């Protein structure tokens, strides 16, 4: 690393343990992944059909130092060379977050490094900066198992939430419908695969909500799918799973793509960014690509490994926080319901 390291380069370690991935990464200048390690627990949670928080926390403790070691080894760097230690502070599962937060504190303390807490969703958005530099104002569509949000950014580190789900997150609706179709956990990717083979022949509802609203609602759609399946079973009618998945997906993707498009025009943004685990969904990628084909906005969808939870995105968002002077104290705590707008407006302390 020695020769290529100039004095102005900033190296940030990111740690992420908000759900079921134990992850650490090193990012250079907020834009370049140096190393990125994710230890997934999916195999362990599969037997329960979903993430069991206490099991997730237990795995995090078992994995975290190994993940750190691997991260530094891959980068051929040491903790001494880091400019700061950044960590997901929230939102997420509290017990899981606590492992990451205490790891970050212990490492920062042992090595006399600045400590910085990062918002998980800010991380998902900043995953895109590892692919391409931001141009403001930009619009971010964040879609994951826990989130469905439209966020406008006017500058680095500031976030205006213009729309969010009023009930289920898009990813949550996917998982619940997948469970009804008896697909293995995690259901999202299986739904996506089935949808690609099916036909959109069931007219499921689309919740547009009031005129001009950028909020989302997916619980009505989810219930409609479950009712349709139930009624069909009673009438001994056979619905193809592929068609149910395709029709459900069309309903979700229509609303997501249309609202994102409208918001992009209204806020006159330069870029549209898609972030979060559901950004891996092929149906959504296709719909957005079509929608924005002739639009003046540039559409950015990160590669799959940066869509799902990882620590490179935390280090990327953490780099901006570091450069803006944010520093956490040794009393940094996990905050399972950390608010994104308030996080963006927090006072920096040196």
């Amino acid at each position: 690393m020695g020769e290529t390291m100039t004095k102005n380069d900033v190296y940030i370690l990111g740690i992420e343990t908000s759900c079921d991935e134990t992850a650490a990464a090193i990012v250079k200048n907020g834009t370049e992944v140096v190393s990125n390690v994710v230890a997934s627990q999916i195999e362990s949670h599969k037997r329960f059909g979903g993430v069991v928080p206490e099991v997730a926390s237990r795995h995090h403790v078992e994995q975290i130092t190994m993940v750190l070691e691997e991260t530094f080894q891959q980068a051929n760097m040491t903790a001494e060379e880091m400019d700061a230690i950044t960590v997901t502070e929230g939102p997420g599962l509290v017990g899981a977050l606590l492992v990451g937060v205490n790891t970050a504190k212990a490492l920062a303390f042992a090595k006399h490094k600045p400590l910085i807490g990062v918002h998980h969703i800010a991380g998902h958005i900043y995953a895109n900066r590892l692919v391409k530099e931001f141009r403001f104002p930009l619009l971010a569509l964040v879609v994951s198992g826990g989130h469905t949000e439209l966020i406008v950014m006017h500058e680095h580190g500031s976030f205006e939430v213009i729309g969010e789900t009023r009930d289920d997150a898009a990813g949550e609706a996917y998982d619940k419908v997948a469970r009804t179709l008896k697909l293995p956990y995690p259901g999202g990717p299986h739904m996506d695969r089935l949808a690609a083979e099916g036909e959109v022949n069931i007219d499921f509802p689309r919740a547009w909500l009031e005129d001009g609203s950028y909020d989302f609602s997916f619980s009505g759609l989810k219930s409609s799918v479950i009712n349709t399946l139930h009624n069909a079973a009673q009438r001994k009618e056979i619905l193809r799973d592929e068609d149910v998945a395709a029709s459900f997906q069309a309903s979700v993707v229509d609303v997501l793509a249309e609202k994102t498009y409208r918001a992009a025009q209204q806020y006159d943004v330069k870029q549209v960014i898609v972030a979060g685990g559901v950004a891996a969904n092929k149906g959504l990628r296709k719909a957005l690509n079509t929608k924005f084909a002739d639009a003046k906005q540039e559409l950015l969808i990160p590669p799959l490994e940066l869509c799902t939870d990882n620590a490179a995105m935390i280090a990327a968002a953490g780099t901006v926080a570091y450069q803006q002077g944010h520093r956490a104290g040794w009393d940094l705590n996990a905050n399972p319901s950390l608010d994104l707008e308030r996080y963006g407006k927090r006072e920096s302390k040196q």
Partner: protein
Amino acid sequence: MNILAIDTSNQVMGIAILKDGLLAGEYTTNAKKNHSVRLMPAIDQLMKETEMTPKQLDQIVVAKGPGSYTGVRIGLTTAKTMGWALNIPVTGVSSLKALALQAQLTNAAICPFFDARRGLVYTGLYKNKDGTLTLEENEVNILFTEWLKKLADRGEPVVFLSPDIELHRPVITDYMKDLAIIPELVSHYPRAGYLAEAGAMEESEPVHALTPEYLRLVEAEAKWLEQQGKN
């Protein structure tokens, strides 16, 4: 030999620093407050007051449970990460043993325990054998009445130690009659100085392999195992 000892496994939060084998500082609180928020500021303060820097540490000792799942993880995560970062050994000591050390000079058997709700306790039985505290009965998560019956059957005096002693005093005297020895109240709270001392004499594991001692499966896991057994 400089040692940092950490115990956040139960409500009592304890930190101690041994400098050249001598107790340089100790911090103990017994408050219903968040260990995650308070642990690192307390370590920082105690390190400053004892004029110790992380680099000067030779070993970290941590109470590895049983206790509050979250509390155990906060201590262990902190200890493992510091140990890994500083490249020094980390020693996990049973939280029950750490408590039993409060009575290590007695010749009677020592029963440390933590309340685990619904009549259950985390407990074990220790005894001083030629100056070292050794395990007489394995640590378990058990109905306290069942455990007490077992202890009463041994027919020898037992020292009971627990931060939850008042909750269980009646049932202890009920089962143990005059075989029960219950010391004054301050002895019922573990002290990190003893933990440090015990850790100095125990083997340390490779840091990656060090895991909490929960003494209990996650409920979902227990159910899953039960299901597997039926199939």
